[in-house]
């Protein structure tokens, strides 16, 4: 952990470049699963890093050496909330219909032919926002409870409960979906 404050603009920018390199994939993954399509995920990722760049010095100063990933994800979270508020919309489908696109950098190829994974992705989109976000942070980004708590502005205990309930609810949704599919066939 580097906790020394940068001594000049060059060091500050070098630290930002490091943050960018380390967490670009995290921010993009979060954005993608949050908004459900690549086009908006790209916009959200770009805006997140531009905003982060503007406030990086202050964030470093106030972080006291703690990792900045929760701060970055919180920026993305706030921007995503504004995005939906401004455009009066929410993610409408499960991750671009979970398999309809074939871009090489996506997860669509991964879930193709995996009905249980498609059902999980569809279920994730049905969860309340806070539960969905907690699951994305835990399983897509590999954040621990403490990081998630910081990103969401909650206590560690509340985050643990949130994650537990999110998983249980998702299990229920997937189970329901599987039952419905079995009845149809």
């Amino acid at each position, binding site marked *: 952990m580097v906790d020394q404050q940068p001594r000049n603009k060059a060091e500050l920018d070098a630290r930002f470049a490091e943050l960018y390199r380390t967490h*670009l994939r995290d921010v993009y993954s979060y954005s993608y699963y949050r908004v459900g399509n690549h086009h908006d995920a790209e916009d959200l990722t770009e805006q997140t890093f531009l905003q982060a760049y503007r406030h990086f010095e202050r964030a470093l100063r106030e972080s006291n050496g703690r990792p900045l990933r929760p701060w970055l994800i919180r920026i993305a979270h706030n921007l995503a909330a504004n995005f939906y508020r401004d455009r009066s919309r929410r993610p409408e489908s499960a991750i671009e219909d979970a398999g309809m696109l074939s871009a090489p950098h996506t*997860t669509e190829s991964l879930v193709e032919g995996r009905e249980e994974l498609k059902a999980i992705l569809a279920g994730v989109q049905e969860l309340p926002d806070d539960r969905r976000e907690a699951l994305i942070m835990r399983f897509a980004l590999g954040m621990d409870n403490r990081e998630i708590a910081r990103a969401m502005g909650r206590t560690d205990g509340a985050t643990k409960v949130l994650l537990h309930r999110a*998983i249980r609810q998702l299990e229920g949704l997937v189970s329901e979906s599987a039952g419905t599919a079995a009845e149809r066939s």
Partner: protein
Amino acid sequence: MSASAPDFESLLREALSPVDPPADLVQRLESTLVSLTELAQDELDSWELSAMRDPRNWVRPAAAAVVGVSAGTALVALRVRARHRTRRQQSASLLELAGRTVRDVADEARRILPDH
């Protein structure tokens, strides 16, 4: 689904695999970040021309130019990596920029300083 919790979490982890950002986003974003630094450099140059007439400001442009170039170098490293350009090429253009800035400062200083 009858999967136990650990199995379900494994599936969840698989379903929510990390997503690599598309190359064009990486290129665009890194260019934007570099542009921010270059914009700051342009503003710095403008500031120099007006402020150099005040002797109290003579130290600042030179120091700022050095900082600006260094900061640019840090961000340019991102662009170099993304676009597979050589670091040497980028450094050369930055050095030219630095050289131009320093020459401008020196020319302006010579122009406004009284002859002794």
